[in-house]
């Protein structure tokens, strides 16, 4: 399959901390890739570098053969690489629907539509429907219709995550990077949530990279796993292979299990 996103030898240091060292990964069209690794392993840094939030010290990022290393988040988004956030980034003073409309407005504007002089309701490029319909459709796909007029500030955690992801869909992303889509969601709900998200994403059609701590979720949804440890990729393979890799077992899975126990402990305490 064709490589759409190609990261080569990305390295990034913050003072003494090595956030990334010679990270390389080639992502194929329409694949679903899980990024695993304990906190601080470099997963979010990887996403931040791809989306231009931080610039790598060395290395390059290519999208469909084009070098996008130097692009800003805005430009990266415009060429179809979108992301969601570990901590949902919402417009807290606006309603769920308005959140969507702001996003769609930007899409329209970038397409030169819905400007000062334009009349009527132009179709949103990629969705071929007026903005309001698109918003409703996406909200429905993510099961957010009931929250349509709720203020983003008052949404429960899981819903915030969903809206955060739904917001990425307005631009019809070709590549979607989900940073811990299920964090803060109870173990029971995780699967249901991922089901819904993946269904929605696939319906819109996109290559997906997602960060996940729960190995069951990873092996259930990922076609391929990138295991991060200390800023390096220590394994890059199909889930069953990657997760059984001894290094991964030691540095990642083990770490995650310990993390779980702690959470249990905290819950019981």
């Amino acid at each position, binding site marked *: 399959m064709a490589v759409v996103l190609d990261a080569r030898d990305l390295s990034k240091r913050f003072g003494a901390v090595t956030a990334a060292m010679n990270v390389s990964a080639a992502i194929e069209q329409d694949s679903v890739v899980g990024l695993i690794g304990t906190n601080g392993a470099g997963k*979010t840094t990887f996403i*931040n570098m791809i989306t231009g*939030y931080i610039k790598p010290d060395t290395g390059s990022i290519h999208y469909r053969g084009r070098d996008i290393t130097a692009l800003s988040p805005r430009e990266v988004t415009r060429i179809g690489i979108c992301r969601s*956030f*570990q*901590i949902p*980034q919402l417009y807290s003073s606006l309603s769920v629907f308005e959140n969507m409309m702001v996003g769609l407005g930007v899409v329209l504007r970038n397409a030169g539509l819905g400007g000062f002089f334009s009349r009527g309701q132009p179709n949103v490029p990629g969705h071929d429907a007026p903005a309001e319909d698109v918003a409703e459709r996406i909200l429905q796909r993510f099961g957010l219709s009931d929250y349509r007029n709720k203020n983003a500030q008052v949404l429960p955690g899981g819903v915030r995550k969903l809206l955060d992801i739904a917001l990425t869909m307005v631009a019809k992303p070709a590549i979607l990077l989900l940073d811990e889509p299920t964090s803060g969601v109870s173990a029971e709900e995780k699967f249901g949530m991922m089901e819904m998200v993946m269904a929605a994403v696939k319906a819109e059609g996109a290559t997906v990279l997602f960060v996940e701590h729960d190995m069951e979720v990873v092996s259930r949804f990922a076609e391929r796993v990138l295991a991060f440890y200390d800023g390096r990729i220590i394994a890059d393979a199909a889930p069953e292979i990657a997760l059984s890799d001894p290094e991964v077992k030691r540095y990642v899975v083990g770490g995650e299990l310990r993390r779980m126990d702690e959470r249990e402990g905290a819950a019981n305490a």
Partner: protein
Amino acid sequence: MEEILTVIVDGIFYSAWLFVAAIGLTLIYGVMKIVNLTHGSFYALGAYAAASLTGAWIARGYPPMLSYAVLLGSAVIVTLVFAPLIERGVLRFMYTKDEVVILLITYALFLILEDVIKLIWGVDPYFIAEPYGLLGSFEIGGLTHPTYNLILVGIAIVAGVGLTLLLRGTRFGKLLRTVIHDPEVSRAMGINVDRFYLVTFTFGSMLAAVGGAFTAPTVSVVPGIGVEIVVLSFAVIVIGGMGSLPGAALGAVIVGLVRSAAIHYAPAVELFVIYFVMALVLAFRPRGLFSLAEPRKI
């Protein structure tokens, strides 16, 4: 050479004055994140209180050397009367509001205090020149300077160093820093945040009053004396970086030196040189010279 020396000396005197006036403002902003226009009112209150009380002191023929203590005392007293009143009476109900709205509230209070001052002291000017002349004068670079100016320099140093030590060294300082870092968490930790705000506001305002009190002997205390000082102080602490003590110091020194240089070499530009420096600094250091680090967003 002599002229450069004079420029520096004048600059330092002005810087000291500016610093004393501005340090309280940066403290209050640093802790409470409010842009406090009543700072000017407290400067004026300090000046008026000092002028009237010290005037009475001298008139009664008490030892003039103690008049400096009276200057200080009157600043303290007047602040203890007004600052808690304002903080407890009005501001504390407003902390939840936007920064801008709080700024407007302090503006409203500033307007009110302007007239309160007029009602208490009237519009006639007050003088207490005695403390100014008392210490005689000294000579640098062939020019005589009143020794009194050194007092302001002294106060500036004491205030700056003292406040730094207070924040770094003491338990109060440590707690205050946690309050600055995150008021909510501090509350959760059982720190009495309100009390810290009250203390900070009172202390910050007191510094303004002290500035006014020790300026009083060198000027005639008239209505509106506090208006200009607010903007001037803001220029200083913005140049230095809002909420930063060393920043305020550096800002004051820069403004002071630039201004006195302007007066000596290009009197025409003195009028807006300060704002020019401010714009210039912000153009290259958008958050001022000693900007506090931004927290990680994602």
